[in-house]
């Protein structure tokens, strides 16, 4: 089995599909450069990025797939999972050799895997929309740091731009070290050099606005008052708010 190595970019992935159709080598294995370990008995093929080739493949996919599937395709790419790259590659090849409508074949393992990974990413995106807690800083910007399982910043950008159109905000992905900054007009990608990278800023750090403490306390109070102790159901609670997200949540801080 041949091995294709690509640089991990979306363009690279599409180029790999192009190369496969040019060579038709049979079953291949696609790996990102970052995690590739050389093997003794196979010579890998390094995919060179060519915007023209990528564009052709992308156009082809858009011709074959409806909008919702294009979104699933992109979401799966953002998962950054190794099996996702293979699934996307196999899925594209499968689409191009079959008549239109082949993406509805949930009996095909790649189609099913793609739709399942896309769902995971959409779920993470939705969780970010729910669990992000802005803190009002002294210089008037609403800040939040996140470290999502998948690279969902591109997916949540529109949601936050539409919703918080009248306040400046930063959402920073501390795991992937980039963030989004909205300056009341447009959203920009930014990089900040943090010494340490907390999800929530400490109130002792003197970077928060003076009212911030009050609203954090009011929110914690509200969270406590809304609870009905007679119905306590910790299992359900943790199922809805998994513990790995508690560090984002104002109401979960002591």
């Amino acid at each position, binding site marked *: 089995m041949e091995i294709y190595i690509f640089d991990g970019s979306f363009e690279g992935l599409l180029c790999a599909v192009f190369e496969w159709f040019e060579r038709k080598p049979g079953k291949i294995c696609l790996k990102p450069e970052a995690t590739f370990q050389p093997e003794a008995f196979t010579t890998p093929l390094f995919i060179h990025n060519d915007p023209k080739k990528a564009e052709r493949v992308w156009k082809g996919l858009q011709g074959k797939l409806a909008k919702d599937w294009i979104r699933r395709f992109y979401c799966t790419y953002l998962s950054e999972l190794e099996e996702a790259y293979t699934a996307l590659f196999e899925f594209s090849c499968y689409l191009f050799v079959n008549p239109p409508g082949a993406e509805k074949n949930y009996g095909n393992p790649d189609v099913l895997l793609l739709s399942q990974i896309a769902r995971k990413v959409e779920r993470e995106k939705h969780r970010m929309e729910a669990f992000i807690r802005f803190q009002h800083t002294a210089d008037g910007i609403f800040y939040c740091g996140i470290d999502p399982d998948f690279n969902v910043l591109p997916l949540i950008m529109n949601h936050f731009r*539409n919703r*918080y159109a009248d306040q400046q905000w930063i959402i920073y992905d501390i795991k992937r070290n980039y963030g989004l900054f909205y300056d009341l007009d447009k959203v920009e990608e930014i990089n900040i050099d943090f010494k340490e990278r907390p999800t929530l800023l400490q109130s002792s750090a003197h970077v928060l606005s003076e009212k911030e403490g009050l609203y954090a306390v*009011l*929110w914690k109070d509200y*969270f406590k008052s*809304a609870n009905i102790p*007679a119905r306590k159901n910790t299992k359900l609670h943790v199922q*809805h708010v998994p513990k790995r997200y508690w560090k984002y949540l104002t109401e979960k801080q002591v």
Partner: protein
Amino acid sequence: MSERIREKLNILADAAKYDVSCSSSGGNRKNDNKGLGDSHASGICHTYTEDGRCVSLLKILLTNHCIFDCAYCVSRKSNDIERAAFTVEEVVQLTMNFYRRNFIEGLFLSSGIFKNADFTMERLLRVVKKLRLEERFNGYIHLKTIPGASEELIREAGMYADRMSINLEMPTESGLKLLAPDKSHQDVIKPLGFVQNQIVQFKEERKLIKSVPKFVPAGQSTQMVIGATPETDKDIMHTADAYYRNFSLKRVYYSGYIPISNDNRLPILGTQPPLVRENRLYQTDWLMRFYGFHVNELLNDANPHLDIDIDPKLSWALRNLQHFPVDINVAAYKVILRVPGIGVGSAKKIVQARKFGKLRIDQLKKIGVSYNRAKHFIKCADTPYQLKDFQGTQIKSFILAESQSKYLKTDTSQLILF
């Protein structure tokens, strides 16, 4: 100042928590004035309380002063509790500041009745007007319609709110008369009908003139208390069904009664809330709305109560084994939807996938069918041939034997004596 607002928030959030509705879906308000907020079509739950209920809206009462004395309510006149009232400005500031920090999707504003219905409704209206017009707030607003308020006030409130609701409180008129002699279902039906008429009317006008404003775009809902009075599940669901049909409600909520008073008309303090029953009622509600079941199929004179140990879809299937087994590869979508263990998502996937070849057991499992449950009711490409026909009771015991009910530990419902 901050101490007083904390106190008020504690009292008025505590009093509002028995209102179950917290959905923020169905709104379609867009942020087109560069203001704050934008509706999310499917709604967002920003956090969950320790009892596992979602927190999506800032749910508060404007005041817990009330002129009524309903036995099931914490804010009843005769109850000796702390009373408080928010000013309009306080509610607006809380909502705006919580929303800016992405704590909430919007506001759920209810109120005890002070002085009279119109006076209360007018206060609620002032809050929503200030939010929408002065603060340019486009988030979700759920407003209680106060029964007995004048139609002009309700109509104006509807222009600013996304959803309005009135609680039926008790599933039957006789139950309501027992616990709240001053109230009747007629008080609820009138404003529900009025708002419903207005919604239809505004929609018709919008078809002709695009600039007609939105009126309660997320529709209406209502709520019933379960287990405070001795209604059967059949009474409850038939009432719910009638309200769904007559008023095109978006939701009916069922709230298990949590004992809050020593009144001898009600379950005694310390009784477990009927959580399993509540869950079964919601399952029935879903079957009616999304699975094409008629309420009579699930609850009728022969079966006035839902089974506690199995879900209503399974118990319907066991009573109607003549419809099974269903062949997954040829049966209609609606028929597949009725198989226990197959949900809407799986059914849709099955219908699409079988065009490409006959489906096998392993594929069904991967698609998301809960196969251990469904296998008694379906046939697919490689189902083993079976001569023996099992009885409903046998199938039930197979399924119960391999499933772990999450409720068994807390199930303390009382047995019927005679």
